[in-house]
């Protein structure tokens, strides 16, 4: 099998350079990328090559996020107790973080999602709340302040 011609190699190098440049412009901190390039990168990358590398970056979240559930008049319990699979626990965490945006439309969309995840009927007998524990001093992060918000309240 013959190797590619010089012209083909040149085309490959150009394609790779453009692709990598656009991926970099899409994923690097926005401060480092000119606006025009960022817009072009979004057009190219988002539909097929979407990726973001901001896990715990630029800073780890200073507030932990936990969903708790109460059935009837029972005690409040973290939903993760009932979710054994790591992907189910990840969905619960994801819902918890999304619910932090105070977007009522998003909350309405996530309400059935959370009931579905926990396999409970949305008939008013099960209640959910969101518990955040926030770092007060980064040098003593184990001392945290708790904030509780009831979810899906009428």
């Amino acid at each position, binding site marked *: 099998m013959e190797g590619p011609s010089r012209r083909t190699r040149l085309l490959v190098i150009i394609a790779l350079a453009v692709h990598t440049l656009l991926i970099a412009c899409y994923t690097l901190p926005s401060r480092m990328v000119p606006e025009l390039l960022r817009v072009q990168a979004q057009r190219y990358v988002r539909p097929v090559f979407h990726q973001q590398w901001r896990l715990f970056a630029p800073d780890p979240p200073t507030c932990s996020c936990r969903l708790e559930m109460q059935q009837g008049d029972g005690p409040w319990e973290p939903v993760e107790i009932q979710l054994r699979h790591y992907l189910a626990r*990840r969905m619960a965490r994801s819902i918890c973080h999304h619910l932090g945006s105070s977007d009522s439309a998003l909350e309405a969309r996530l309400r059935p999602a959370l009931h579905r995840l926990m396999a409970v009927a949305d008939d008013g007998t099960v209640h959910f709340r969101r518990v955040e524990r926030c770092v007060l001093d980064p040098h003593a992060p184990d001392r945290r302040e708790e904030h509780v918000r009831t979810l899906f309240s009428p």
Partner: protein
Amino acid sequence: MNLPATSLLLFQRALHAWVLLYVLTALPVADLLWFDPVTPLLPNKGGIQALVDPFAAGLPRGAAPTVLVLTALAALFGTFRQATWWSSLVLWLGFNALMHLSFLASSGGLQLASNLLFWNIPLALGTAGPKRFSGAQLLGGWAIRLQLLVAYAATALHKLEGLHWTGGTALRIVATDEAFGPAWLASMPQLATISTWAILAFQLSFPLAVWWRRTRVPWMLVGVLFHAATAFWMGVPEMAAIFLVAYLPWMGERTSSANATRLGLSGAASGTAPQQ
């Protein structure tokens, strides 16, 4: 700009095995992820997005089990046989459909896998063990290699923009978050600070260190430890595994040939392309 053929062969097999393993480990919650998904459907903008997110574009959700089976079969095929461009295409399409259907359970690892699977299609254009790669294979192979470097560089540069990574407090904050850990690290502030800076230095230097054999191997060994730790304490095992899969195209040809022989793949990898 030649590529190590055996390293790429091992990468292809490992990538398919990764998808297979991901699908199999997700089966206990397949109902929540895909069949009657927890994730709400997002509006689809049409065009090429319809290709990667077909359920949002109108494909009935009842088709999810079929998509799952096709994806698993394509992954199984490529784990034990040389993948073809069409089996790679099926795998990329199927994986993307499933990933979008369960985006609440998504992670950077799944996004990385999606990108690697895309470039695996041109990589599969050609016969097993080419003496020289075709233009499409060169494009696929190098795009896969560079993707790993962009991931490390991007995350490191984002961390440099914050306060807690450069200040050395990031890992203590993560360790005291009840969703992560390890909690004991918070009681050892000096170790936590050194580990924070070590992670930052590792991610920042990896895109350079990987180009030279003398630095590549130690950096990859540190990477294995780092990703194993994230798998255990951050709850992202599939992300850790896909990063290690992405290391394979950077392995030297000699090391990969020895590994291929051990795995009984040496026949498929004969006629190795020369490495620069």
